[in-house]
């Protein structure tokens, strides 16, 4: 009915096709971010007696805390756009943190995992970490594309196994004594730089490359994509491999930032990353999602956590409220989508 209505309106419009972009849908989610910030600002003056936003240190820490989530979320967003899901990214962070760190130990450290392989140049642990992440992603993608098991199950299996690898690797011992060369990437503002660079690269990739166009097409209608000549299987492997690669990168940054690696790193990160993508407007049904939205979604998660701490809200309440805010964000979005259709 409603589509007919629009169609009739369209038929009255001149046939001459105009080229004009719609207002990007990220505006809405940006308004939500600003709204949350303003609420904290007001509550800050009311209850804490200081400004929430006018504190550069707080803002820096806030973004630093979520930049690892953000790196993962960039990969997860692409998976979600294809209509899939990646539950393994948090575990892959833990696994790559452990393995990469084991190649980044200094000779001064007496309990190195590989005593003969110490003081290696930065590039070695970096490539090892990225390689491990990529491998995990390739396995996910291969399973989903060729065995046709649902992404939920394939990545659930990877989530459990990758976590197992990170525990088995040193029998639960942390990997410490990392070289300054390696930990450099986790110092200062570097994690944020990595996050925003990755976001920029894949924003461009999704918007302006064939890779991006095919990703959206598969998510919008996988059968139509196949009939249009897209090699769906090969493309899905690419997307999951990229998600794995980015989880690997996040693992490296995590270990570098903590100056040590532990088997429990990255637990639940996958859920935060999915939340960031969904808050940013990605649809789990596929075909919809943007990196800019995901970046804003990530920052919203950061602002929420930081704001709670700032207002000295009990940590227990924080999680309860965070869950509700995630749901509220999506409910609002679903409602908005429905309204636009009718």
């Amino acid at each position: 009915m409603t589509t007919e209505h629009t169609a009739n309106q369209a038929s009255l419009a001149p046939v001459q096709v105009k080229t004009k972009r719609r207002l990007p849908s990220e505006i809405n989610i940006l308004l939500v971010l600003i709204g949350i910030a303003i609420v904290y600002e007001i509550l800050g003056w009311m209850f804490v007696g200081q400004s929430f936003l006018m504190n550069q240190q707080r803002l820096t820490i806030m973004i630093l805390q979520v930049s690892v989530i953000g790196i993962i979320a960039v990969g997860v967003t692409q998976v979600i756009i294809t209509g899939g899901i990646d539950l393994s990214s948090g575990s892959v962070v833990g696994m790559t943190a452990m393995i990469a760190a084991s190649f980044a130990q200094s000779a001064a450290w007496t309990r190195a995992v590989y005593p003969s392989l110490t003081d290696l140049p930065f590039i070695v642990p970096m490539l090892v970490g990225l390689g491990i992440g990529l491998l995990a992603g390739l396995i996910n993608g291969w399973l989903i594309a060729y065995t046709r098991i649902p992404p939920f199950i394939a990545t659930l299996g990877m989530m459990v196994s990758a976590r197992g690898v990170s525990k088995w690797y040193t029998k639960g011992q942390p990997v410490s004594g990392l070289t300054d060369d390696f930990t450099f990437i986790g110092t200062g503002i570097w994690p944020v730089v990595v996050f925003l660079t990755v976001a920029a690269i894949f924003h461009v990739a999704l918007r302006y490359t064939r890779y991006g166009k095919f990703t959206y097409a598969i998510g919008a209608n996988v059968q139509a994509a196949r009939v249009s000549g897209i090699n769906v299987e090969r493309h899905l492997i690419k997307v999951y491999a990229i998600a794995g690669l980015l989880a690997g990168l996040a693992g490296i940054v995590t270990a570098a930032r903590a100056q040590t690696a532990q088997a429990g790193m990255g637990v639940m990160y996958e859920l935060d990353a999915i939340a960031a993508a969904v808050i940013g407007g990605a649809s789990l049904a596929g075909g919809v999602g943007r990196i800019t939205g995901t970046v804003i979604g990530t920052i919203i998660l950061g602002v929420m956590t930081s704001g709670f701490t700032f207002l000295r809200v009990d940590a227990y309440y924080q999680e309860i409220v965070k869950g509700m805010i995630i749901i509220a964000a999506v409910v609002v979005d679903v409602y908005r989508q429905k309204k636009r259709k009718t």
Partner: protein
Amino acid sequence: MPNPATVSPPTMAAVRASGAVPNAEYLLTVENVRKEFPGVLALDDVSLRLRRGTIHALMGENGAGKSTLMKILAGIYTPDRGEVRLKGVPIRLQSPLDALENGIAMIHQELNLMPFMTVAENIWIRREPLNGFGLVDHRRMRRMTADLFKRLNIGIDPESQVRDLSVANRQMVEIAKAVSYESDVLIMDEPTSALTEREVAHLFEIIRDLRSQGIGIVYITHKMNELFEIADEVSVFRDGRYIGTHKSSDVTREDIIRMMVGREITQMFPKETVLIGETVLSVKNLSLNGIFTDVSFEVRAGEILGIAGLVGSGRSNVAETIFGVTPATGGSIEIRGRPVRIDSPTTAIREGMAFITEDRKETGCLLILDVLENMQIAVLQDRFVRGGFVSEREVSAACETMADKLRVKTPNLYERVENLSGGNQQKVLIGRWLLTKPRILILDEPTRGIDVGAKAEIHRLVSVLAKDGVAVIMISSEMPEVLGMSDRIMVMHEGRVTGFLDHAEADQVKVMELAAR
């Protein structure tokens, strides 16, 4: 699931419960029913009368309105106008459950059983016999099922899982389920389409048995011989209109065909004379296991080959196989005399093919994406891309030119395709493929569900393409379209080619005779 107590028309339920059913001559009457969908008038002033203890066949071409009428009787659709009467009492069905409780049961073409549950559980679902603790009494349920099967002469183990049953046996279970509701009216939609000859014989035995118990059966079929074998009466529909009812002993095959196709052929398709060139596509003994066998034909540059046949004849499957969606299990394909192996749409596109699928929404449009994204997706395989980057300006310009040329009515290229009308969606898909500059164009139901104006435009467009030397294969259920547009018509029936007709010799009766033997 709606609460039955609130949706069921209480009067009729009470009448049924009392057993004092008004003794009407007709079990079921449909009078002047009209049903309109956005853009399509599916039923226009349709009537039907079903006598007690008869088998009443419904016939008509694809899109004649049979299925819509059946869905009204089964409570899936409600009519816009008109009346349905059950044993003389007007009823207004609100849901399939409602229909079932009023004694109307429908056996769908795609069976609606739960594969991981047992036969008995499927039949008595929602009505399971309970024991003293309020738990399901499986023993009693099994006995009830066994009794039911004995009555119908069905030999299926009530405890077997539905997924282990053959299609024929699943159908038997559906019938038993319908009978278990003490239904007076049984609607069957092409029940024999997936059965072997022996299974059909058994099914007919059961149907005759039900008839002798006074049940009225509405039997939708495309098969002429079944009509004469089992039906007592036959009603014919055409283009959403009721044409007539006859005793099946009073009519001949030819009468039925004439009623189905009508006589008037509109001169909507001024056929352009095109110089027909060399053979572009040659298909030899193409087969797909269990779907179609030994399909051979040639299409030449500038030629439009129409493929006619009823739904289920394998027309669309042939197109899908040529395009590599379901690679062939036998036979060969040659393009310009060169043998090619087409195992995916990607290779088909590389060979210069384009395929506009039957189901716009399922396999065509990227509904939630915009016009531009929909149009460019196929051409990006090998054009407008440099080093992975899409040359946005060039591709938008090409899409814009194409959209103007095809006269796509859209506010701009950034409109979501789901907001366009069916005709404009189809134009977007045609544009998607024309951008790839195909030499072989396969169109499956190119004008289904779109309005007359857009239809004519699409026909004109196809003619122009043929003139430019494109080899066109056009599958269509619309007889005037096939007859008007095609240089030659290939007719299929049950997975086989039953004949070719030239433009000059083809008429509706000849096509129908080949399509419904």
